[in-house]
Every structure is written in structure tokens, then in C-alpha cells.
């Protein structure tokens, strides 16, 4: 099977965000970055499918040069090769534009399955995978928690998570796009051998300007302002040493809230 995972690099979980000078995004200098959680699960899933059916796993990323570090991690986990579409200046700023760029690269060769995350952990639009499917004219399924591929029949079964603990199996003809949900399987660690091998694997850099995409035709949305939400804190915050707060809490739960 030819498998491709879209992988996005994002600021890591413990980041203390600061708003940038323009007020329309965050400062990205001095941050550390990681692979968006769903994408790590999605890469793991493509590796499992390759183990079962043979074939190859490619990674596709749109991002600045620093994204290479996350791509190397993906290669160390076991992916065979990678394509990085370089956007060092951050020109591609909406899900639709991202999908258009990714689609342009994906038109170059046919994959049986294209996997993306359900939603990224930074801008969190939850759009890119489905936009990509429609732009490529492919069928899709979202929020996927299990995959059973049948390459001989060119079919794939995907288990879709539904609300409130429900699940549903759907079947699609391949090629198809699946958006992967966190928790689909357990993510492997890169082995030392994997890390060594990753150094020799190919990351093909593609310049945005080399792609035939017209970003001006994209229905734009614009972020006017990014800010810390002003919230009215409802909670009564208990103050004091550990012993003091614990004592207050038990007292309040018994006498005030009367839940103990």
C-alpha cells in the first residue's frame, strides 16, 4: 500500500504563549515544537498498515524549515520518506490554503490512503483533511478510531467515532482520505536504530513558488486579533499551605456544599 500521513509541527504542550506584535498570532521565536498529537497517532497507524500490507509510508508537511525536526522524528519512528513544502514566511495561513497546497503536491502521485489528524492542537480548525479530500475528489471519513484496509479489493473500512460513546463502521473505495482521532492506537518510540536510519532518509524540500497554486482564489478568512480570553472565574480559589487548603476543602465540602 502507498500511505501518506500529513504531519503538522506545532508549539509544544507546555508553551507559555505570548501574543505577537501584530496581535494576530503568537510569538514563535524561542519556542520548542512537537508533532500535533493526532498526527503522531496517524503516523503510527500508517506504520501499522505498512507492517500488515507492505508498501511505503510518506510524510507530507507544510511549514518552515524548523519543521524538519518533527519530520526527522517521524522518519525515526519508521516512515520511509518525506516531503516538506517550505513556507518560511508563513504565507499560507488558512485551512483552505493549506489544503490547496497539500492537494497540489498530492496530485503528483497516487496514494491508496491519505491520513490527516482530526484537528490540530494549535489553530484547531478541524478542516484541513476534509477540505483536502474534496479538493482531490476523494471520499473521506472523519474522526477515525480503527482502520481495516483491503488493498486487493481497493476498499477500506474505517471505524468512525460518534458522539456519546457510539461508533460506526463505514466502507470507502480507495484511494481515500481519513482523519485520525487521538487514541486510535499506542504510539511507538523511535528506536536507536530508527534514529540512525532517519538521518539518511530523504526529506524532499519543495518551494511554495514551485507549486502551481493560486492562493488568491481561495475564500479567505482573516484572523483580526488573538488574545487571552477574559473569563469570570467562578471557582472560589482556596489559599494557604497544602495542609490549610486541604483542611478548608474538606470543611467546605461537608458544611457549605454538603456533598460529603
Amino acid at each position, binding site marked *: 500500500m502507498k500511505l501518506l500521513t500529513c504531519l503538522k509541527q506545532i508549539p509544544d504542550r507546555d508553551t507559555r504563549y505570548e501574543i505577537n506584535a501584530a496581535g494576530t498570532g503568537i510569538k514563535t521565536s524561542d519556542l520548542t515544537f512537537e508533532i500535533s498529537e493526532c498526527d503522531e497517532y496517524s503516523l503510527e497507524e500508517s506504520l501499522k498498515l505498512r507492517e500488515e500490507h507492505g508498501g511505503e509510508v510518506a510524510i507530507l508537511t507544510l511549514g518552515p524549515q524548523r519543521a524538519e525536526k518533527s519530520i526527522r522524528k517521524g522518519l525515526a519512528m519508521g516512515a520511509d520518506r518525506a516531503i516538506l513544502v517550505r513556507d518560511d514566511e508563513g504565507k499560507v495561513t488558512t485551512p483552505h490554503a493549506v489544503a490547496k497546497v497539500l492537494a497540489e503536491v498530492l496530485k503528483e502521485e497516487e496514494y491508496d490512503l491519505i491520513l490527516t489528524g482530526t484537528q490540530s*492542537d494549535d489553530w484547531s480548525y478541524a478542516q484541513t483533511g476534509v477540505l483536502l479530500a474534496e479538493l482531490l475528489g476523494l471520499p473521506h471519513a472523519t474522526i477515525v478510531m480503527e482502520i481495516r484496509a483491503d488493498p486487493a479489493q481497493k476498499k477500506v473500512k474505517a471505524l468512525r467515532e460518534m458522539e456519546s460513546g457510539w461508533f460506526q463502521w463505514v466502507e470507502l473505495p480507495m484511494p481515500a482520505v481519513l482523519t485520525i482521532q487521538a487514541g486510535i492506537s499506542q504510539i511507538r518510540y523511535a528506536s536507536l536504530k530508527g534514529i540512525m536510519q532517519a538521518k539518511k532518509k530523504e526529506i524532499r524540500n519543495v518551494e511554495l513558488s514551485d507549486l502551481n497554486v493560486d492562493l488568491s482564489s481561495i475564500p479567505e*478568512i482573516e484572523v483580526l486579533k488573538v488574545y487571552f480570553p477574559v473569563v469570570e472565574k467562578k*471557582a472560589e480559589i482556596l489559599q494557604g499551605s497544602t495542609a490549610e487548603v*486541604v483542611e478548608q476543602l474538606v470543611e467546605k*465540602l461537608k458544611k457549605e456544599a454538603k456533598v*460529603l
Partner: protein
Amino acid sequence: MSEKIYVLIDHGEGEIRTPSLESLALGQRMAEEAGFSLHALILGNEIGPLAERLGKQKVDSVLLVEDQKLANYDPDVYCRALSEILTEDQPYLFLMGHIYQNIDLAPKLAAAINRGLVTDCIGYRKEGDDFVFVRQMFRNKLNADVQFRSEHPWIVTLQTGATSVDDLKEGSGQVVERSLDLSAVELRRKQLEAFEATQGKVDLSQAELIVAVGRGIKKAENLKIIEELAEALGAEIAASRPVVDSEWLTRDRQIGSSGQTVSPRLYLACGISGAIQHIVGMKNAQCIVAINTDPNAPIFNIATYGIVGDLFEIVPALTKKLKE
């Protein structure tokens, strides 16, 4: 002619889904403010009674599209039906709930008709004559105001719980039937079996006391302090999704939009940030206690009592105190 706002009404098992009513309530407010007309759009098969019910809300009309092919959600058919209607009617705004079905559908629709889409909005504000939409991002730590620069219709999905159905205003709107020719649409996705994963396993819906644990616990071995606290309280253990995704606890203990919904007397959240998908599953607890190192964690916005501190200190101390 005034501009129009369309709201998609989702339904299941003969009932209108609550997130759609929330979207309708927001639509009513926006239409009123802007002087636009408001129209509820419902797709399905044999859903006349639902359309009648919608007609009793304050709407200018209810657009009813019935077709056998629309009986169950399918992305190809639903996308085609909506594309045709939106292209023909050109509403200003198309509102839908940010539910799983529309996460599957909305971006497909946006790509099909080449229009802008802003997902998972929690509200809007007026900026001059225009609407600007507010959404959360960066793990709910930041908000963004987003404006459309694209042609209408603008497509917006609305976060569950962002508006209240209590705000819905009654009125009367005429049901207008609309027929579409969907015969040529090819259904590429085959629907197979659906099942409920938690059935017959741990049922937390009746639990009186719950100790819930989140990613702040860091690894499975650390769960011991949570178990000890639960034991001292006589409480059930529950978890946020990442804890379950990592297989530190089983899926049937997950609380939230893709897990169980609970309403205990006490919900003690340890190392849980309070993402919306978690909150929807536990916000009806009588008393919520949050223990978190981050004073800005959203969980403190809904908690009754909060302790800003390290759970590895607080939890054992609390257990000890309770045992006294």
C-alpha cells in the same frame, strides 16, 4: 430585499438535536440585530412533523427538503443538496452546529462551493456592519476574532453549549417544501454497523462521587494516589480523554463528548485543563473541585472550589485528611 441567515437543523431518532436549536437561537439574535430574515433548513425523509415544530419558532420560514437518499447522513448527498440550495439562495450566512456530523460535512461543503468556513465558534461580535466570529484555539488558552474575506454565504459552525436553547424565541414560520433532484449523486461511503462501546461496562451516570484524573497525572504508575483518594472518599474513578487514549484507564471511564455524561454530587478534577469536550460531560455536577497547577486553566471557570497547586502534593494530603 434583506439578507438571509440559514440554519441547518440536524436531527436523529425523530428529535431535533440540541446543538441545532442552539444555532437557531444564535441565528435569531443575529437576524434581529442585523435586520436579516432567518430560515431553518432541514434535510431528511418523512420529517414533516419536525418541520412543523420548527415552524413554531421565531423564523421567517422553514425549508424542508425530503428525499429517500437524505434519510441517513451521507457526505456526498448532503453536500450536493446543501450546495444546490446555498448556490441558488445565496444566504448571507449559513450556521450549523459543530457536531461530529458537521465536522464531517462542513469543510467538504466549503470546498465544493469555494466559500470560507470558520469552525467551532463560541460567539460573534459586530464590527461595523460585519459580523466577526470568536473561536478558541491553542488548547483553549487563546481566543481569536476571525473575519470572512470571502463571498457569501459564509459558513460557520458553532460550539456545543456556546448559546443556550433557553434563548429560543417562539413565533411562526411557514414550512416551504423544496424538491431537489439527487438521483445522480453517487454514494461512495457505505454505512455499516453502529454500536455503543460503553454498553454493559462501567456506568458512571449514577455515581454520587467521582474523582477524575487528567493528563496532569503524567504516567500510569502515578494513578495510585488517585485510587487511594477515590477509596478514601468511596468514589468512582473517571478520566479525561488523553488518559484513556494512553490506555492508563479503560475507555468506559472517559467523561466528555465522546465518553459518558455524569451528574454526581461531587466531581473532583485532578490535572484536567477543562476543554469543552470534557466539560460537556460533567458540567451538571452539583459541586466541582479542580486541582491544577495552572491558575488560568479553564476548569476553574466552572469549578465551585479551586486549588492552584501540584496534584502530587494536594491529592495525598487530601486522602490523609479524609482518613482522619
